């Protein structure tokens, strides 16, 4: 199990890593999932879920394996993709620092607010419907997957069940 490594200051990071895993982008993905979850479940996005978003959507094979619709039974899906899930805890661990930074970035900008039940909409939320000047297919599918995860988690049982299924503990 890889150690959760802390991030270097922005200017010292490798430019690729800095650009690809920048807190704005990662935060956006988490915000999308949280927003969708909150919209459907009408309750704040549980914090542990935030740490699952990036590992699930940034890893291409996992993202492609995600169900197309939010009403897919989570248990069935996880049984079909146990190989992918087996690697998930490690990826979640390696991306924990990134997720944490993204969460800090979101909270600092008051896009999300952290309450006792989890993450909820902040005073100045991200303008998620805004059209950005540059785009790519990869990024677009990542965003769709993030939104889907929010809806899917909202439709499935308890947080504990999901976390157990994913093999991840808070």
């Amino acid at each position: 199990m890889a150690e959760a490594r802390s991030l270097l200051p922005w200017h010292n990071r490798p430019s690729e890593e800095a650009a690809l895993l920048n807190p704005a982008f990662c935060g956006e993905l988490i915000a999308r999932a949280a927003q969708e979850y909150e919209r459907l479940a009408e309750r704040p996005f549980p914090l542990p879920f935030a740490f699952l978003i990036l590992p699930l959507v940034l890893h291409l094979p996992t993202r492609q394996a995600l169900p197309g619709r939010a009403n897919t039974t989570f248990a069935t899906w996880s049984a079909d993709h146990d190989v992918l899930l087996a690697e998930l805890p490690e990826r979640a661990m390696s991306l924990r620092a990134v997720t944490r930074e993204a969460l800090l970035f979101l909270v600092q900008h008051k896009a999300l607010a952290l309450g006792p039940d989890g993450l909820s909409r902040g005073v100045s939320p991200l303008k998620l419907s805004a059209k950005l000047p540059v785009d790519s297919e990869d990024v677009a599918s990542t965003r769709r997957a993030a939104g889907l995860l929010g809806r899917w988690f909202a439709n499935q049982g308890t947080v504990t069940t999901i976390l157990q299924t994913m093999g991840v503990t808070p």
Partner: protein
Amino acid sequence: MTLQLRAIALYSHSDERREVMFDLGCLNIVTGGPQTGKSSLLRIVDYCWGRSDFVVSGGGVIRDTVAWFSILLDRDGEGIFIARPNAEPGGRSSDEIYFQRNVAVLPDSSKGFHKNVTADGLRDHLSILLGISENVYEPDRRTTQRPALEASASQAIFFCLQAQYEIADPRLLFHRQGEDGITAAIRDTLPYFVGAMGDDHYINQKRYADARARLRDREREFNDAQALSSKASVTAESLLGEAKRVGLVPPDVFADTPVQLREILATAAAPRERAYAKMDDPAADLTDLEDRRQRLREELQNIRDEIGDLKRLEREASDYVAEAHEQQVRLSAIGLVSGEGDHPDRCPLCESHLATPVPSVTDITRSLAGLGRQLNSVHRDNPRLQGRIAELEAKRTDIEGLHRAVQSDIAARIADNERLRIEQDQFTEQARIAGRIGYYLENVRTVTSNDGLKLEVARLRAEVAALEKKLDLDLLEERLTTALGFVGRDLTDIAGTLALEHGNNPLRLDRRRLTVVADTIKGPLMLPNIGSGANWVGYHVAAHLALHKLFRARHRPVPAFLMLDQPSQAYYPPDRDVGEVDVHDEDQIAVTRLYQLLLDYCTTTETPMQIIVVDHVELLQDWFRGAMRQRWRDGIKLVPVSWLSQEVDEE
């Protein structure tokens, strides 16, 4: 012409002469005891006539004492002297012959004797003397290996001599009959000597045989030529077909006659200007093209490599662009954030100081801007790269065009070469056919010009026909029958006179078997079947007398003498010296009858005939005594006793 014997003479080593003289045209008798040299007389005649082997044995006396044997012939009064030396000690006959014409008397001395003629020459001389016409015929040596054959003096003498052992032998009617080649010679020359054929018969017969042989050869040649020319027309047709095939003759040409066919072939074989393409060495040309193709290929490969390099470069660049773009896209998520967050190095939740400050919007925006610049520069570079690639691709297209052109040039050149090779093959084939036609035409000219052969065959046929007519073998046979009819009649007469057994039957001379045949009522009876020595001697004498009667009547070239050695031997065996006989027994009567016949024969025949008899009997009649020339008794012998003492003296 008559040729008779005047004398037989011996010359001793000491040049003494011993002679036996004979009278012409009458019976001459020499009587004597045993071993007095009687039989030697006949042998001396035989030897001096030119016989090749030495036959005068006569015991040691003659061998030791005699230097020369000789005979003196009389030809219508001309003396002809022939002398041959005694055999050398080894027994070989000497090839020395001394021949002299116009000799009046026997030479006294042998001093002048020397070799002046060969055996062949002597034979020719004697033939001429006998009157045997020139009938030596030399066969064409190219067509036959037969020796020249002729009727000559050598054969004539066979009818004139009867040696002691022959006269009583039923199987040997003629002198030397039974020896190798002699029988055939007698048989073949008999028709000539009895006059059944003209003097030129032999030469005609030989000419005929030769002409026939030559005719056969020419006819064969002619037939061969005919066959060749009939075969030739078939060949000509096939040659025309070949000439058409290779294009020497247009395919629509046909010949109606052999002559026309030959003319067509002549034009086909005529030398012609060949439309032969003068071309550079096609192989070298091809090599140039292939070199060029190789160069183009290398150039093309270089261009392709360069394009490959450039494309890889471009791809790498675009990979970078894609990567940078992804970063740009993700960084631009900053655009979703409004406003600047405060205290990036402070935790917004617990207000504690963060070891690593959260990147600020400014930081991210700056990164975004930097990426944008980089991407722009890459996009600026790319067109240059692509321009280069486009340039190279254009060049590649050009070279590929050139390569295709060279490729098709090579293909065309190969096809060209193939066509030229086929053409050349055809020229070769044409030349070959033309050559064959030329050769054929030459041969055909030879065959057709063989008209000479045709003429020669016709000429030879005419010659053969003419000779056939001249020879007229049927006529010959007829004449021979006539002649032998005369002989048979006389034979029958004489046999009757001698009271021989079967003498009352018709008798004839069988010229094939060379014997006397009595045609009895039971069938033909030949001499060996008749039996009794008296009959045998009688028939021998009768046959010869009958033949000589015909020879004389017809003036045939046979010597007019007959030598008989001891005809009385059948009555008085030679080992018994009967001496004077005056007993009137049957034997004596028979012997008297025989001598009476001989005496009468000489006097009654129209032309003179000389009969020389050597015997050991002595009849007491006056006519017998009158015919006696020598009487060798009481120490008188052929070789005088004095010669022997000389021999002793010399030793």
